[in-house]
């Protein structure tokens, strides 16, 4: 899977947590790539493992978590087994992050300027030069009056502004890869759009790749070149955004899209849903992970785990019946 012009390639990654009742296999055999300058949306519902995946890439996993196998390569260099020191060199330089909650993501007792200077710890420039860079970056994210606002504390900014500051910080080092972990979830709709627009604009200028983690399908459609859909720790479908939206091949993807009121053109009082619940990730079912909730599931699905394959416009689909006609979803 590794291609030289891929910024990030995740190959067969498995991550598990030690819990009192057993090993919880949060991410299993996930593979995907992000090309240079590409924006990739990672989509999934609660508990699908997308955050674990993100934390694995950044190596910020909690203590109970362990990478069981697979590789995470940044331009060919394996992050999954890189020494801590090396990770520290990469983080904030070649890989940056924007987290979900803008209220808590910045240090409350340090000024924004101080934090933006701190993160340039690799640079040997003078403080004044670092500060000037910080001001310039704040201007680029359209913080009004950046010269004075830089000496403010995070709580003196509004939520939307704080998220912009976070984006400014993340992009200041002009990284190769920006990991954005639900950066717009906590924002109101109008701010969400503004933030997405800003991200897109900056991405075009800087040319970095973005891994955009969200549960909001519309945002992916809006922003991303490619989409990866996770369910219960597994990557069930991935491909170019337009292709996947037009013709999703995995039943889960199909159902997910069908449930989203935004995707339903005509007004209807009754909306579709996906019955059933997530499988137990400690005591995994045999076969396909989605079999328990899949209207199309057959005996084979319950015994044999499907291998990923290309189908329709999608590059990877983990379904035995990836080529079957799209499901009719009743409300």
């Amino acid at each position, binding site marked *: 899977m590794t291609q030289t012009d891929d910024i990030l390639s995740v190959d067969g990654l498995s991550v598990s947590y030690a819990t009192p009742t057993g090993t919880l296999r949060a991410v299993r055999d996930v593979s995907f790539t992000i090309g240079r300058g590409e924006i990739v949306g990672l989509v999934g519902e609660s508990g699908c493992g997308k955050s674990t995946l993100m934390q694995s890439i950044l190596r910020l996993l909690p203590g109970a978590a362990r990478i069981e196998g697979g590789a995470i390569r940044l331009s060919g260099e394996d992050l999954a087994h890189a020494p801590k020191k090396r990770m520290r060199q990469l983080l904030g330089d070649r890989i940056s992050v924007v987290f979900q909650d803008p209220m808590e993501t910045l*240090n409350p007792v340090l000024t924004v300027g101080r934090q933006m200077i701190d993160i340039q710890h690799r640079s040997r420039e003078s403080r004044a030069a670092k500060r000037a860079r910080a001001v310039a970056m704040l201007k680029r994210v359209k913080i009004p009056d950046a010269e004075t606002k830089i000496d403010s504390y995070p709580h003196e900014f509004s939520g939307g502004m704080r998220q912009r500051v976070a984006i400014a910080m993340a992009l200041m080092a002009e990284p190769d890869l920006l990991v954005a972990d639900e950066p717009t979830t906590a924002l109101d709709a109008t701010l969400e759009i503004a933030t997405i627009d800003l991200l897109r604009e900056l991405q075009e200028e800087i040319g970095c790749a973005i891994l955009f983690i969200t549960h909001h399908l519309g945002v992916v459609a809006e922003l991303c070149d490619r989409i990866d859909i996770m369910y219960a720790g597994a990557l069930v479908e991935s491909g170019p955004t337009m292709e996947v939206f037009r013709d999703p091949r995995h039943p889960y993807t199909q159902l997910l899209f069908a449930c989203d009121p935004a995707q339903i053109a005509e007004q209807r009082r009754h909306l579709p849903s996906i019955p059933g619940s997530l499988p137990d990730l400690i005591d995994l079912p045999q076969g396909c992970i989605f079999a328990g909730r899949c209207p199309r599931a057959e005996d084979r699905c319950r015994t044999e785990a499907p291998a990923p394959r290309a189908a329709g416009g999608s590059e990877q689909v983990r379904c035995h019946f990836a080529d079957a006609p799209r499901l009719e979803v009743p409300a």
Partner: protein
Amino acid sequence: MLSYGLKRLGLSVAVVVIVIAALFVMIYAVPGDPARVALGPRASDALVAELRARLGLDLPIWSQILRFYGSILQGDLGRDVISGAPVLKVILAQLPDTLRLVGGAMLVAVVPGIVLGVISATHRGSAIDRLTSVLSVSVMAVPSFVIAIYLLLIFSINLGWFPAIGAGQGFWDVAHRLVLPSLALGLAWIGYTARILRASMLEVTGQSHVRTARAFGISDRRIMYDYVLRIAILPTITVLGLGIGQMLSGAVFAEIVFGRPGIGKLVYDAILARNYPVVTGTVLFTTVFFVAVNLAADLLIAWLDPRVRHDLAH
């Protein structure tokens, strides 16, 4: 910030006013004539009458309480019935010894407390963390006078390493004599300090902004000191502020066991001697001191924490 400061100050003053009123009521509630009690059985009636007049005991109660406030406002806490000296002067004369003791105890509490707290938090769940936790709660649980007696028994009487009594003269002598009482008084606060620091460090470490800092490749050391400790230390300041006040009065046990002069010994002797002006004066003094230290701690925190500063401004 200013308005917060004023508000906190106002609250502190209100608290002191209430404490004064409560003290007054207590004095008033003492069975018998306070002047007679103060002067002793053989006092002439004239003298009792004079003291009554001086204490304003013949006035109506509301007027007495106003007088009480008035004189306290002027720094007049009454007179020591035994020596006749102003109570404030008597207290101030005893203060240095107690402050030295509290200072020693703070040193005992803060340095190991912070070190243990940091070690505990950075090695969460390890054997050393568990050991520190158990030690912390243990030293907090055992009353300081029991510790004082055992220290005296072991280190003064049996081993003879430290003097048993007195405050001493000259730096080294004073320091030498401070060791055991400071330890007795401060030991519990090692626990308080370590625990609160550990808890607040863990809390801060779990906050999202620390993860952000990590995600920018800032070194663990730097994160620990600039990002975690800086915030985590704030609750510790509150606890130590409380500590100073509690130690000031808790010194009574260390002072008695180690035969030291000081505020605690003063009030204790005054209680035994029914020297009410000294008792109430000392209680009032320590209360004001306590309130003032806590106020100072709060203001310090407000000053150190821009969030509070900000909230207060709005």
